């Protein structure tokens, strides 16, 4: 028992050290004279990481595949934009982003969580498209022509960068906590077998609503951080179906149901997305579709799954050469 718990402790220490190093590297990187374009790309990746980590809590850990996260991202974006225009401090505006998205998650979750698997996924597409259409026609937010943020003062890219870094760190900490906690166990149980989970005392609807609320809050904040940076948002963008697909794609590419996966996926997507769109303006979505199918067929744990296999492979070779040299 002692041995197992110290082993656990060492494992945790390695992980904390790894994440800490990543945070420090990202924290000091802007001071090493990286190009403003790279700062911009990293900012984008960090915003995507917040949403990716959030989606993974519902989709990866709890197994509820939602195609509707653009609703939270978009509501968060508009809430922050209107808050800032109304004179709020950006952090207060982001708080409102989170709250609005959280509220929306309850209204969406209550009816849709009665559906299972693909039916739930389809329902979230419907809700998401309905919200986009409403926002396109809503006059006080500028309708289809979008909404502009008029923030006073000079544009400071690093302020945006550190805001995104801070919130993505918070998202990863929440995700890591959930993976270790009693709450996280119940979410995994719901993913594996909802009825069996209820049969040992888990309230599946409550568990799903709670994790949905948490994921929506984080995604709303991501939308808010993005909106403040972009200074202009419109329904086809933040509420667009491609936004929902992006938020679902990242954790699946990186490895759904893990802590590191959604972060890896967010980095990959954030850094290659623009290049890909530039290179294949028509076909980049097709490419993602193909990638998704390959991952689901061959390695449901995405990049983290491949890394795990690679490690197993190296360890086997290592052990083999070790026994060979002994023999």
């Amino acid at each position, binding site marked *: *028992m002692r041995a197992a*718990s110290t082993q656990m402790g060492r494992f945790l220490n390695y992980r904390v050290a790894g994440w800490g190093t990543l945070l420090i590297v990202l924290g000091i990187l802007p001071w090493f004279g990286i190009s403003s374009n790279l700062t911009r790309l990293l900012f984008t990746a960090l915003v995507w990481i917040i949403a990716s980590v959030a989606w993974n809590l519902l989709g990866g850990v709890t197994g509820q595949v939602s195609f509707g996260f653009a609703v939270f991202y978009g509501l968060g974006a508009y809430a922050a934009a209107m808050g800032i225009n109304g004179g709020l401090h950006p952090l207060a505006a982001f708080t409102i982003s989170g709250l609005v998205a959280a509220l929306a998650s309850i209204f969406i979750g209550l009816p849709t969580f009665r559906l299972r698997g693909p039916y739930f996924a389809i329902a979230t597409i419907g809700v998401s498209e309905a919200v986009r259409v409403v926002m396109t026609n809503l006059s006080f937010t500028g309708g289809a022509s979008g909404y502009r943020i008029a923030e006073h003062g000079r544009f400071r890219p690093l302020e945006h960068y550190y805001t995104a870094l801070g919130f993505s760190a918070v998202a990863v900490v929440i995700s890591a906590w959930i993976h270790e906690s*009693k709450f996280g*166990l*119940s979410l*995994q*149980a719901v993913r*594996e*077998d909802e*009825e*069996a*989970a*209820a*049969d*040992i*005392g*888990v*309230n*599946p609807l409550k568990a799903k609503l709670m994790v949905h609320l948490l994921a929506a809050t984080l995604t709303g904040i991501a939308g808010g951080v993005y909106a403040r940076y972009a200074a202009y948002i419109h329904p086809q963008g933040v509420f667009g179906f491609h936004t929902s697909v992006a938020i679902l794609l990242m954790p699946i590419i990186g490895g759904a149901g893990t802590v590191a996966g959604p972060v890896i996926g967010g980095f990959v997507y954030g850094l290659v997305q623009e290049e890909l769109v530039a290179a294949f303006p028509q076909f980049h979505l097709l490419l993602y579709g193909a990638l998704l199918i390959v991952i689901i067929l061959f390695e449901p744990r995405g990049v983290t799954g491949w890394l795990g296999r690679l490690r197993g492979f190296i360890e086997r070779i290592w052990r083999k050469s070790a026994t060979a040299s002994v023999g």
Partner: protein
Amino acid sequence: MPPLLSVERLTKYFAGLAALKDVSFEVEEGQICGLIGPNGAGKTTLFSIIAGSVSPSSGTITYSGKDVTRWKSFQAVRAGVARTHQITRPFRSMTTRQNVEIGLHFGRGPASGSTWGEVAEILEGVGLGRVADRPAASLCVGDQKRLELARTLAAKPKLLLCDEVCSGLTETEMNEVLDLLRRIRGRGTTILYVEHNMRAIMSTCDQVVVLNFGEKLTEGPPLKIQNDPAVIEAYLGKTAAD
């Protein structure tokens, strides 16, 4: 003293087909009550209704003096009624230990803040200590049966509903499980036990309820049930084969 569980005129239709018809019986606290009957008699359906995962067409269920006819399964577990599944339903990608941990946390609660020791004790109790850290999907059939029981026990039921926990086990393994059930009862847990193996029923139960085509055929002490001509007729072929 009033019975711990009382089922009154319980009826359940599945799309016009009656899986249960007017079934009534009582289970006293501290008993092991057997529930037997040929395939399709309605035993599992009865369990699902008592445990809250299926709601009945009519009839009432009273537990500890309260009407619990249409409760939800997680409410049942928290009130102390938990069931095992005839066809095992482990949380496949999670370890054996995690499977049991969930029962401990979401049932009637762990004894103390740290659950490690208590989980280990439950796993040892059913003989799963050696596979504690394996994913549940990798366990053999017998171990999955044990896990099903361990996970339910972790919820600390006052009324345990066991659905064929011995099927697929060897004679020795079966005796171990039966010993375990008797020990659990010794600690004050009441058990309602579905089983096809008559030897298991005879050696553990205080009372037996017999279902046939969704209706209660008879009930009584195991010896009387074993020699009841109506029961033998319902089981004809099956008892002969045993």
